[in-house]
């Protein structure tokens, strides 16, 4: 699966144990793919001394701050960008 810039995505709400690079506060949240950063060895495997291969696509994903924090008082156009690996993303087809 590959995401194009602009694609709406949801971060998987996975409780995968061990080392993960996906911030807990983004799990289950909906955002959009800003760009493909590149492909890199999987840090979840590198963390245990494995090769991390095959390389995984890493995306710059944008989120509305108002979607992330309850009682967020900043402007609605405040965004947060995070680097998220493809295996942590699923297509979001719903509307907001």
């Amino acid at each position, binding site marked *: 699966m590959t995401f194009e810039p602009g694609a709406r995505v949801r971060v998987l709400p996975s409780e995968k144990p*061990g*080392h993960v690079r996906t*911030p*807990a*506060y*983004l799990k289950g949240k909906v955002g959009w793919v800003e760009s493909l950063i590149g492909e890199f060895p999987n*840090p979840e495997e*590198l*963390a*245990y*001394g494995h090769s*991390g291969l095959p390389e995984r696509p890493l995306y710059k994903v944008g989120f509305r701050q108002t979607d992330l924090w309850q009682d967020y008082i900043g402007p609605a156009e405040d965004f947060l960008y995070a680097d998220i690996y493809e295996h942590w993303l699923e297509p979001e087809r719903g509307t907001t």
Partner: protein
Amino acid sequence: MGGSPGGSIDKGQHEVEDWERLADAINGALGAKGLQSTDELRRAIESLENYRDLSYYERWVAATEKLLVEKGVLSSDEIDERTAEIERRWDGP
């Protein structure tokens, strides 16, 4: 960690201490020799039971010890013996 509430942020500056420079240098040397990677260090830091009680470089040191023992590069006994030896010298006459 990972977005959990962390309280207020200490924005004060402090001098880097010698042992902190050494901790950084050891990490760099182990990385150059392929004995430890950033991803492994992060994983080991996250799994420290006393994570919240330790300072930044104390976490590095504790996690490095954990990794080197895990990989069989050093044993806990070797580290403890060497630590005791240095403490004796430190307390010296």
